[in-house]
């Protein structure tokens, strides 16, 4: 009989998930993940006359982590910011096509942008806590929504900070300025702030790019927990992070969607050679 195998079997086989269809070579057509919480349909986006997003169609699954990857300038951040219409702040923008959240178009003229943003939380690349205390940072979304009962706010603060794995570290200094925290803590505070109002969707734009590996690891662990409750879309430059953290990955290049599939597939056997080249680090 062959000698005992001293090497671990690296090709660990996971039973195929019920929600994902074939793991065969996928083309650029949308992979539909059910239930699709965010549907992007033939979405084109212009800065003035400059078209930066071309005919994007993809579904983002509920309570999963979807990663947007691609080289600089490929449009992944632009698409992310369109999901909560933060791009409305820029002058001269135009769009064609539609984005639907839970079946409703976010561009419906009857929909108030502010109401949309209350249902979608956003975490930015450079953490941006407000110049207020930790407590006030977390409850900011509630205060702007008009809720100010102290018992409710206290409960939200504890829940959100626990959810962001920050409670034990700051529970004794809730009234200290947010700037007295470390970099990683500040970003987790921003996450706590984003989830305080229990949004359905959490958008994260390169949340760990300014953090050290330990803080990054904490936040990645956090994302694993958060996806039980929230639908998460994360933009990242870090291949390994996308591979570690996300369920589905979408690869963009020059404003087009090149490939969108299970993360496992994208990183073991992508079907598009451009995807292969990018994830292997050969361009971008």
């Amino acid at each position, binding site marked *: 009989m062959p000698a005992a195998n001293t090497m671990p079997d690296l090709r660990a086989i996971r039973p195929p998930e019920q929600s994902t269809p074939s793991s065969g070579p996928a083309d650029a057509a949308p992979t539909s993940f059910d239930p699709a919480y965010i549907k992007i349909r033939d979405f084109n986006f212009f800065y003035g006359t400059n078209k930066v997003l071309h005919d994007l169609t993809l579904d983002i699954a509920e309570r999963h982590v979807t990663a947007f990857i691609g080289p600089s300038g490929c449009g992944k951040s632009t698409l992310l910011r369109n999901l909560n219409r933060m791009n409305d702040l820029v002058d001269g923008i135009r769009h064609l096509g539609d984005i639907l959240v839970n079946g409703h178009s976010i561009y419906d003229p009857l929909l108030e942008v502010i109401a949309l943003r209350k249902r979608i939380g956003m975490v930015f690349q*450079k953490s*941006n806590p*407000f*110049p207020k205390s930790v407590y006030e940072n977390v409850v900011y979304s509630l205060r702007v929504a008009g809720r100010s009962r102290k018992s409710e706010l206290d409960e939200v603060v504890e829940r959100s900070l626990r959810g962001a794995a920050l409670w034990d570290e700051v529970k004794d200094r809730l009234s200290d300025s947010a700037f007295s925290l470390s*970099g990683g803590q500040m970003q987790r505070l921003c996450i706590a702030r*984003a989830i305080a109002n229990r949004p359905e969707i959490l958008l994260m734009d390169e949340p760990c790019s300014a953090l050290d590996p330990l803080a990054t690891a904490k936040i990645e662990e956090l994302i694993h927990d958060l996806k039980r409750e929230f639908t998460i879309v994360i933009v990242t430059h870090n291949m390994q992070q996308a591979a570690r953290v996300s369920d589905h990955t979408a690869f963009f290049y020059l404003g087009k969607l090149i490939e969108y599939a299970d993360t496992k597939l994208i990183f073991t056997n992508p079907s598009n050679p451009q995807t292969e080249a990018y994830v292997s680090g050969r361009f971008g």
Partner: protein
Amino acid sequence: MVWITSMGLAVGLTMIVFLLGMIVYNGLEVFWPKPVVRLELKEGSTAGVNNAPAFGGEIVKTQAKAVQALAADGSPLPSQREYQLFVGNKDVYGFGYKFIDNAKIVSESRPPGVVVAERLEYGNAIFIPKQFTLADGSTVAADDSGFQSTFERLVKAGNERRAEIRRIERDQIGDLNRKFDSIRLARRAIEARGGEPTPADREKLAEFDATTTALQAEYEMLAAKARELRALQDANHIVYTTLDGAERTLPTGDLIGFYHPNTLSLPQKAGLFTHRFWSFLSREPREANTEGGIFPAIFGTFVMTLLMSMAVTPFGVLAAIYLREYAKQGVFVRSVRIAVNNLAGVPSIVFGVFGLGFLVYFMGGTIDRLFYSLSLPTPTFGTGGVLWASLTLALMTVPVVIVATEEALSAVSRGTREGSLACGASKWQTIQSIVLPASLPGILTGLILAMARGAGEVAPLMLVGVVKLAPTLPLDTIYPFVHFERKFMHLGFHIYDLGFQSPDSEAAKPMVFATTFLLILLVVCLNLGAILIRNYLRKKYRSSTF
């Protein structure tokens, strides 16, 4: 290269230090009690006062003689000196200061018994007391053991009585006058309606008459009491001789305070210095602003600066918020900004003229016509006052606040704003909760600059509400407590008035320096206050370090 820049700084600093030092020294030196000398003159000299053989006063200045005598061979003699003396006793001499050539002095002495007394009229008196002549006819001689205590007792009693008289006349009788005035206006209101008076009117008029009679009776009583007190003020007299030998008599009620300049110890001098400085700050002016204190000017400057700040801040901040946050950045906004910046360069007197024409005549006139028609033709708001002055200066300093606020608003990072919007806040909520609080230090900087500029401007004020002597303060205990229509006094204007329009320029000189010193002190205090608030806010809202 370093030394050129540091030299520039050194030159600037030296100039500032020298200027401030000179003002502080000259300003404070006025209050330091100086010895009084008695000068004996050469035989037959007419250099003194009233051709007396001796006279005396405080040495104010020692300088080289203006006109140099020449020696026999035509070469100039070595420099001679002359004193400028403050001789006081303006009622005796007709002047307060005198130059005396040192060559004409035989001897100098400092008689210990000399007294310098502050009094109601004619400025300070310098004399050697002889005796007190009391109301009952008895006398207390100067060498009497009880003389000093009597002196103190009488002066104190006189001060108390004077305060009492003032209370009666200003407060109580003033109150009556106001009541008279309101009845008069009410009567006029009825008359102005015209036609036959209705029974209700007749009843009212009857009531007015009754009240008038009662008030009149009260007035008589108070006036009598005041007269009585005034008589008491004149009851006792002090008899003294001036240093040149003239003998005078003065009612003790005219004395405000006194001291012996030549026998004071250092702590006593310091105490006196503090006392004089304090009365300068807290008392009211006398003798066409050459005597007494400048409290109304300090208070008026303070109130006006405060009102100006309260007016300029909301206008400036709101305008800056609109320009920076809401307005579409294009040609229009750029030209508005240019216009605002140019406004900062307009000479202040132009603002004064605008204030006069628009605020005082147009707006004030309209207000008078609408609300104070009964008082016409005496203008209430149709003339200069603390409100119009504050608004004029607010208009002048608004560009500074707008520019500083805009800078502070744009310094709030985009990331912070985006974070707020992503939380579902509206633009206004973002401005209100995040941007404005974080901009407060910058806004306060603008306010500091505005206050500094506004507190120092004099030219526009002369047209819109500052007077040489104001009988009342713009803020007092009478309803409605803040009197926007009143004219007020201002430190800057006070300096101008003292320096250029006072009858006795020598007497005014120390006051000018002292007032200048106070104005600088006031502005420094206002600025320090704002700086402290700004530092506190900066610590509270400091930005992240990474």
